[in-house]
């Protein structure tokens, strides 16, 4: 059965189902938007201790994957590829964490960066789950938080995704379609 087409109340665009992105926010979507902003602030706050030129704290943190192995193939990856090229990896971490924090804070391409954040949280978990004095649930919660933000598309309320979808959904093209899926 064909899906019934509705007129979006925010844009007046009949081609866009109301649920697709410009729905009027209710309490639930506002709570999820607040949650997204909080997770963005979490990344922002943690970019601070990854500082060049030596990235000393990050190196010690990453080395936990080798000294307290969680998943042997990941430990081998860290030992043989990441640590020998650590400066490049550390710069990548600094830039990527900053971008993830900024995009989750502003609700831009939220679903894409929620998945990236979940991947990064998984990598962190694989590094430190068996490190003494760590609380493993912190990392499980981080992964779950990002998956929740992804599932809720939490950037469409109080976020730039809501604005962006207004122009993306009106345009044809595969790239535009991919960008719209990232919101």
């Amino acid at each position, binding site marked *: 059965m064909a899906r019934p087409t509705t007129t979006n109340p925010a844009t007046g665009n009949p081609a866009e189902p109301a649920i697709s992105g410009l729905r009027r926010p209710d309490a639930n979507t506002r709570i999820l938007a607040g949650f997204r902003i909080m997770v963005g602030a979490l990344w922002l*706050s943690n*970019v601070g201790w990854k*500082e060049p030129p030596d990235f000393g704290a990050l190196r010690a943190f990453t080395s936990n994957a080798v000294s307290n192995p969680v998943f042997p193939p990941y430990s081998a990856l860290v030992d043989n590829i990441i640590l020998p090229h650590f400066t490049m990896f550390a710069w990548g971490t600094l*830039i990527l*964490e*900053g*971008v993830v924090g900024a995009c989750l804070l*502003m609700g831009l391409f939220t679903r894409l960066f929620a998945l990236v954040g979940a991947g990064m949280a998984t990598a962190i978990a694989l590094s430190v789950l068996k490190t003494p004095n760590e609380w493993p649930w912190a990392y499980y919660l981080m992964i779950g938080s990002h998956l929740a933000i992804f599932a809720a598309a939490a950037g469409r309320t109080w976020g730039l995704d809501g*604005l962006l979808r207004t*122009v993306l959904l009106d345009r044809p093209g595969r790239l535009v379609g991919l960008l719209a899926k990232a919101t």
Partner: protein
Amino acid sequence: MTKAASVPDLATRVARTQLTVGVVALAVGVIGFWVARNADFSGGPGAIIFEDLELRTMSYNRLGAVLTIVFGAIGIAASLVRRPMLGLIGGTGFALMAVQPLLQWRTGADNLLAATGRNWSFNLAMALGLLVPAVVARLAGMGAPSTVAPTD
């Protein structure tokens, strides 16, 4: 229904977004200036805002705080005069502030704004918050002020 009918609502949402981002930036800049009142005008180390609350956030000296206030004010102005393209100026300013610590670390130059990695992320967020609405407005044909519907 025609696409033109959707523009007034979009114009309002673009203005509201730039206003929100501008107010947040202005508030952070003012707080940054307050905590950095005894720090050097330029150079480091800066003062970290909300440090007393154990929230590790951005670091400012007075120059960094003043620039944050100025670019935030431009965002507010873009909203109030309904010229989203003005947000490009504020957004570009924040983008330059965002890359400043990265370039400074890469080249070993002085940390002019006393910025940290947190400033990189925050300034990038503010840049996106002013630039994306301007781009959306442009794509929706709202670039010139004469095409923007009056506020309700």
